[in-house]
């Protein structure tokens, strides 16, 4: 996949100050599944996203520990309380040492 590690973040527009908004993020990543051979798992260094950190206005608000049980191109939804206009950032880490970032600007109505 040519764009492995691209992180897209989507937030609704015109959020009222202090209200709770829902955002979605999409990580372009193969998120490898564990292979099986003769009924047993094959041991190798699978490449999958194992940690996702969400930060808003520079502060971490949520952290997800993920596994191979998340589909290809992991997509997550979460909520945040929109107190100020600012950056909502998502950082994803994978098992091969990859670190991928994506962000969206939160604009209050």
């Amino acid at each position: 996949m040519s764009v492995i590690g691209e992180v897209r973040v989507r937030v609704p527009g015109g959020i009222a100050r202090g209200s709770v908004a829902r955002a979605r993020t999409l990580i372009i990543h193969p998120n490898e599944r564990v292979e099986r051979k003769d009924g047993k798992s094959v041991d190798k260094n699978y490449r999958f996203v194992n940690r996702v950190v969400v930060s808003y206005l520079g502060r971490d608000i949520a952290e997800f520990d993920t596994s191979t049980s998340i589909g290809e191109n992991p997509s997550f939804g979460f909520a945040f309380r929109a107190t100020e206009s600012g950056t909502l950032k998502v950082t994803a880490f994978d098992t091969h040492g990859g670190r991928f970032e994506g962000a969206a600007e939160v604009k209050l109505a």
Partner: protein
Amino acid sequence: MAQNAVTRREVFTGAAAAALAVAWPHAKARAQGFLANLAPEEPVEKSLQRLFGSRPIKDGSQVITLDLPLIAEDGGNVAVSVEVKSPMTPQSYVKTIYVLSDKNPRPLSAKFNLMPACGQAYVAANLRLADTGDVRAVAEMQDGALLMVKRSVRVVVPGCAA
């Protein structure tokens, strides 16, 4: 002469330790995908016991909304969302939401750690489901109370999840 040799050895061990310290974090980060670093293969009851020990898990059907399709055409990509009706204040909030898939070899699919700044205990993800069976959501409150709901999903084409 003897003193010289000791000094040289010290220099070498020092250099080796320094090299290891530089190489190690990288090596560790690169090796996280091996089976030993994944959750163990186990039935879901064992996962629950491993995660929560003997702590009581209450029925959360009054407060947790677990949204899943009734029939998942593609087990490799099943939308799941969990919403817990709870205040999100520093005094009382949902600390963690666990999503477990009963029929997957490694049932713990994801663990969502939340903060009061989330404003609402809501998470969504795209799951891989190995087979038709239950999907559970467990909410852990900041005081340690546990609530669980489960729902059955029919999987048409297995996602060969792990």
